[in-house]
């Protein structure tokens, strides 16, 4: 049965967070037993803190925006297409890329736990793993999107992908207007993590604001 250790203040009573002591105790026991290598823990942390994150996915999206053959491959066999860019492994073993269109916006959730495409997005943000998002994304996706400042036209179809098995989904957002002539590298900078979960859209070039997906009548005039 479960038990509680976190109220014990032995050895680590200078810790501010009682859970820090609990994790340290566990790591200590496992290290003393030779069951874990603290340097391996460091290497894992370094991987997800510095090497594997949403920049990977952004490069995948930018390539799909600029290379129709790659986009087709990504749609057909995302695991292989993404692996061709060197992104493979844990929590990305079985990838599926889902493409936003003018008619349909895709949103990814894991209602049962925290399934997330680590190879392209890194470890998930806290909100993705927490009850508010997991509970509401499938029943009230527009309400969820509004919290991210994303208001879609009423007629836009919303497709929610609940990651209940071992497929890991990434959203390929539509390439925004105003991006003609940008290089793949410049395009990748516009692709946010949230745009690849479906809770956001790509950025406007040179801004932290989302770019327009369709040229509005007044913007067409302003741009020309």
């Amino acid at each position, binding site marked *: 049965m*479960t*038990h509680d*250790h976190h109220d*014990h203040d032995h*050895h680590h009573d200078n810790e501010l*967070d009682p*859970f*820090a002591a*609990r*994790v*340290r*105790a*566990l*790591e*200590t*026991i*496992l290290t003393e037993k030779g*069951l*874990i*290598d603290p*340097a*391996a*823990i460091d*290497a*894992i*942390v370094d*991987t*997800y*803190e510095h090497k594997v994150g949403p920049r990977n996915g952004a490069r995948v999206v930018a390539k799909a925006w600029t290379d129709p053959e790659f986009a087709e491959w990504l749609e057909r066999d995302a695991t292989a297409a993404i692996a061709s860019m060197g992104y*493979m*492994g*844990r*929590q990305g*073993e*079985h990838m599926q890329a889902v493409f936003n269109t003018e008619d349909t916006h895709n949103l990814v959730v894991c*209602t*049962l*736990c925290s399934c997330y495409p680590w190879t392209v997005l890194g470890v998930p*943000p*806290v*909100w993705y*793993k927490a*009850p*508010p998002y997991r*509970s*509401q994304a*499938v*029943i009230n996706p*527009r309400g969820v999107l509004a919290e991210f400042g994303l208001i879609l036209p009423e007629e*836009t*179809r*919303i*497709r*929610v992908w*609940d990651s*209940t*098995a*071992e*497929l890991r989904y990434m959203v390929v957002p539509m390439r925004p207007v105003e991006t003609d002539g940008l290089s793949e590298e410049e395009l990748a900078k516009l692709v946010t993590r*949230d745009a690849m979960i479906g809770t956001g859209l790509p950025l406007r070039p040179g801004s932290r604001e989302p770019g327009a997906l369709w040229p509005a009548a007044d913007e067409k005039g302003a741009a020309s």
Partner: protein
Amino acid sequence: MNGPHDLGGQMGFGPVAPEIDEPVFHTDWEKRALGVTLATGAFGAWTIDESRHARESLHPATYYSASYYEIWIRALETLLERHGFVSDDELEAGHKIWRGVTPKRVLHEGDVAAVLARGAPCDRDVSTAPRFKPGDRIRTLNEHPETHTRLPRYARGKTGTIEAVRDGFVFPDSNAHGKGENPEHVYTVCFDGRELWGQGADPALTVSIDAWESYLEPA
């Protein structure tokens, strides 16, 4: 099991409240929690399905008041005890007392990159042909096992359409309990929002789940 983890459609948890410029980790202990969880997973002593079941078996009051890394660590303590690697008195003391079970593998620093890059694929060959094809209408079972399952409550007893036939995958309902991989075909199944949530549902909503074949019957 109808546990606290099965959150789809529940209400009352408040706003999503996304954090602007959220750091990858909020505290050092979160880093260690991630690392220890992955490093002990490399023992090969339990499956991802067993570890998910350990997390969802936490008491609901604990589950809902814990951060996700807390959930991981609480479940990991259960797994380590269940498989004989650590004991309750060691967790109390914060130090090694017993020798305990020796794992098949210990993850060393030099192997981390390769192990993470390899992952743990869980697609498997299935000898039978898929029972369903894209476009087929199906109904999900309305069963409430006390054991692990990946068919969420909101999608039980519902009529939907097969959108895609996926690979065969390890069946979590048996694998979580040490009863074998028993791989089955997996399907992406689409439900109209109104089928799941009634007439008040967003008329432009489609929700899909990925369902193992034995969760489904012809509609």
